[in-house]
């Protein structure tokens, strides 16, 4: 039987709402949890053997026992021939943790997406046979946490990063990627050295800073992916100019001049690269890659040739040199093809749509 909590009339079990006042009916049967509590603990059935009673006891192969997040980036695992889907969250125990395959952060066993980078936790990394792993496709409305702030990724074709800044937190960004903001969100300008150099090189003369509390949102102007990179302490990452969307205030920002005239003229990315460095605290860096984004870890001395316009980011330990190959065609003399030779060790990120879209 059910009864209406407002008028106290009783109804059959199949009724949902009270016929008199429209209130949702309440079942008279005792709640399920009461039955569970009535069972003595020693009579409860043992959990399945694949569910460890404690995090340290015989973890299943899908999950990792809780441990602090890896301080350094771990190389991608052995390439898998095909994507494999798993549902670790559905089987995780209350004390288990799931390691994000993209950023290595540990998450609660019930989480569906990584708290630090937004990568879906129920889908394994997609890795091509040649060793490139695809940046995780962040599900619509996924929330990412950093400091006292959150970032919600909205949309999938041209995604928007909406930041809810907590008090004391701040982020910095190039001003042209700002989509909207609360009118009371405090703003300031980051002091930069070498302003004339930056102006001549076509880089943004001003880096804007937004301070919490307040909301502010960012997007770029082409189909692509948000690449969320939680940077562990002590990481140096070089990013193609104009590719970074925003970074948290724990990350220090500078820029490095690309060495070599050939690299500047034919490298397809101008004179400077952005460099992001974390000190003793982790930070969050968001980039926007045109098209799809792929990452590969190069071993020490390993090299790969990349279309310069496709370069997106690299560890500072990776060296990059542009090489020209002449393609001749008889009378017309042919043309030259410029490729960037990336030499490990470290990560290299590329974007599959490599035309640079100017926003001015």
């Amino acid at each position, binding site marked *: 039987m059910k009864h209406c909590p407002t008028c106290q009339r009783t109804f059959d079990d199949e009724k949902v709402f009270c016929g008199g006042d429209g209130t949702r009916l309440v079942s008279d049967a005792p709640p399920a949890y009461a039955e569970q509590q009535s069972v003595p603990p020693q009579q409860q059935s043992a959990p399945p053997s694949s569910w460890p009673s404690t995090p340290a006891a015989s973890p299943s192969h899908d999950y990792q026992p809780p441990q602090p997040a890896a301080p350094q980036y771990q190389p991608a695992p052995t390439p898998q021939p*095909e994507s494999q889907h798993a549902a670790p969250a559905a089987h995780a125990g209350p004390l288990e943790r799931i390691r994000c395959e993209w950023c290595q952060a540990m998450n609660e066993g019930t989480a569906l997406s990584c708290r630090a980078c937004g990568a879906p936790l129920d889908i394994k990394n*997609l890795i091509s046979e040649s060793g490139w792993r695809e940046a995780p496709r962040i599900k619509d409305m996924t929330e990412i946490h950093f400091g006292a702030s959150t970032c919600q990724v909205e949309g999938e074709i041209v995604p928007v990063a909406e930041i809810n800044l907590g008090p004391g937190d701040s982020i910095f960004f190039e001003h042209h990627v700002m989509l909207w903001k609360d009118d009371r969100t405090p703003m300031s300008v980051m002091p930069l050295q070498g302003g004339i150099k930056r102006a001549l090189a076509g880089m943004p003369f001003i880096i804007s800073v937004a301070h919490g509390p307040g909301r502010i949102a960012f997007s770029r102007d082409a*189909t692509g992916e948000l690449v969320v990179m939680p940077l562990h302490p002590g990481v140096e990452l070089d990013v193609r100019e104009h590719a970074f969307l925003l970074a948290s205030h724990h990350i220090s920002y500078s820029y490095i001049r690309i060495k070599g005239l050939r690299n500047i003229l034919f490298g397809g990315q101008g004179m400077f690269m952005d460099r992001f460095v974390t000190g003793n605290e982790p930070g969050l860096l968001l980039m926007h890659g045109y098209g*799809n984004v792929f990452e590969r870890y190069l071993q020490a001395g390993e090299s790969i040739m990349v*279309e310069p316009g496709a370069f997106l980011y690299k560890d500072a330990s990776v060296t990059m040199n542009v090489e020209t190959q002449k393609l001749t065609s008889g009378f017309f003399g042919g043309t030259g*093809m410029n490729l960037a030779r990336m030499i490990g060790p470290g990560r290299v990120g590329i974007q599959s*749509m490599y035309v640079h879209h100017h926003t001015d």
Partner: protein
Amino acid sequence: MTYDNAAQHGGPARTHTCPWCGLVTDGTSLSCPACGASIDVGAIVTDSGWTELPGRRDMAKLQFGNSFCQIEGTYVPVADFNLAPGDGVYSAHHVLLWKDPQVNVSAMSLKGAWKRLFAGLPLIMTQAVGPGHIAFSQDSAGEVIALPLQPGQAVDVREHIFMVATLNITYDWFSTGIWFNTRNGDETETHYPLGQFMDRFFAPQTPGLLLLHAAGNVFVRQIPAGHTILVKPTALLFKDPSVQMQLHFEHPAGTIRSWRSWGERYLWLRLFGPGRVAVQSAYAHLHDNGRSITRHSNATRQQW
């Protein structure tokens, strides 16, 4: 998707015929090894008869010869080739994304360089021979179309759509014959709504793999003999050589035939069956200066 349970007839246990390329497999893999189409998804056909390019799993793997091609990504897909020794591919050089250092890339000579130069077509095709990895991508959001060509099969492709082909596919190009002239004072301007040339790919003796890149979504339709259809010229992707083309002009009724009245015209490409045609949903804007057409290639006309 077609499954044939041949066991009842004394044949092999079960076969699967790919609705896109027609390859018959045992249906145990997740995607067609010849074109990458997912085999667990049925063909999507509109009421009007257009078949949507079949869904493709990310990281779908294609095989040709002793080599493999993996299609990676969904927004701007990458074709990642693992070339076996002796196998090779050719492409326009601007679609190269990355390669192993040991993969040698060289120029492939093309005939009619002057004409190609003036038509805005790439002067140089590059070819790469295995062993090693090499990857290609185009610079716009869309789909990679895998067209396995059987011996004796040819396909005509609109310019700048071609991405990569295996070396056992021959490459040729021909004049589209689709043009019109406009006059501005003493100046006569020639327009090619479809482009001045089309690419033709032909597999003479052995099967080959042709990869195209389309902007937006792709739809294919079989036009029966004697039937015709009008498509926007810049939306055409490829067609069978048996499909003939000509221009078609339409004019809305009631427009005043002033000096600008031609500005309200619609330019169509009329395609005659029999054969297969494919269109893309994100097409380039066809600029029409609106001036009077003085001459044109074979065309039909309709006044609304």
